């Protein structure tokens, strides 16, 4: 067992792989092309699932941030979960935008449309990219955690406002709404779509577990870095350092 892997991740990883393979087989081979959209409908097995995973990631980040800010539940665990779920969320957000864009290009000949959902997703993408940038700053881990948690909660609070704004904006330019309507879905198409949601759920969980554990390791690495630097300073100053392996100075890393 190496790095962030263990039995849990192996199981999740294997399950994800199977689910993806099943979805691919169902979506690309078994299910029929659509009456109106033709082959393009096969993108429905890639796009909505990613969008759901993206919202799950951002939602989880916001909730974890709230848990971190709430004094009674404050723990670095929530901070790490927020960081991990934000990053995984951004990944699936990118997938949503890219697949949506490709689908749009195929359906209407344009790479982008100011459709309410796409616009909202693009905004969320920008907001969380900013969040990830904020995570890379700051020296003191606890300050940084608090700062980022506040930013995440603020982003979450704005989502309804952004949603209203983009929806009103889209209704001004009525054209796009008609084209966005999903094909009536049943039979093999429905099964394939459900399979895609399962696959995305498994992928999301698998990636989240790995990313969370990487965050644990990053924190430990940072703390050890401080500890090592402290030992070096002490050694320079003539204070005798204990022989052997450097003890883990500071609070134990909670998992």
């Amino acid at each position, binding site marked *: 067992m190496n790095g962030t892997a263990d039995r849990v991740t192996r199981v999740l990883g294997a399950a994800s792989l199977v689910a993806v393979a099943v979805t691919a087989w169902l979506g690309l081979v078994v299910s029929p092309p659509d009456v109106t959209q033709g082959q393009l409908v096969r993108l429905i097995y*890639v796009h909505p699932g990613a969008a759901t995973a993206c919202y799950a990631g951002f939602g989880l980040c916001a909730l974890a941030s709230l848990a971190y800010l709430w004094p009674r539940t404050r723990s670095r665990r929530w901070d790490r979960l927020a960081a991990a779920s934000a990053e995984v969320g951004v990944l699936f957000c990118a997938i949503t935008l890219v*697949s949506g864009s490709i689908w749009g290009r195929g359906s209407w000949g344009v790479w982008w449309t100011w459709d309410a959902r796409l616009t909202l997703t693009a905004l969320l993408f920008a907001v969380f990219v900013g969040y990830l940038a904020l995570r890379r700053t700051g020296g003191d881990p606890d300050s940084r955690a608090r700062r980022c948690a506040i930013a995440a909660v603020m982003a979450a609070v704005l989502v309804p406002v952004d949603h209203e704004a983009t929806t009103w904006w889209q209704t001004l330019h009525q054209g796009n709404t008609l084209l966005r309507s999903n094909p009536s879905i049943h039979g093999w198409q429905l099964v394939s779509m459900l399979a895609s949601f399962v696959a995305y759920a498994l992928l999301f969980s698998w990636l989240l577990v790995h990313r969370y554990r990487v965050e644990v390791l990053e924190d430990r690495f940072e703390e050890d870095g401080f500890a090592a630097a402290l030992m070096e300073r002490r050694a320079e100053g003539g204070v005798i350092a204990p022989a052997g392996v450097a003890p883990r100075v500071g609070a134990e890393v909670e998992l």
Partner: protein
Amino acid sequence: MNGYVAGGWGATAALVIVYAWRTIRRGKVLARRSAPNGEKTWR
């Protein structure tokens, strides 16, 4: 299957695979670095 479908599926697969690989590899690098005495896991 047409070009757009392949593009959509392919881009998705690429993003997921690249991200997974980078994350898992980072985990291995960090685990190795923070425990020189042999243990290589995240715990």
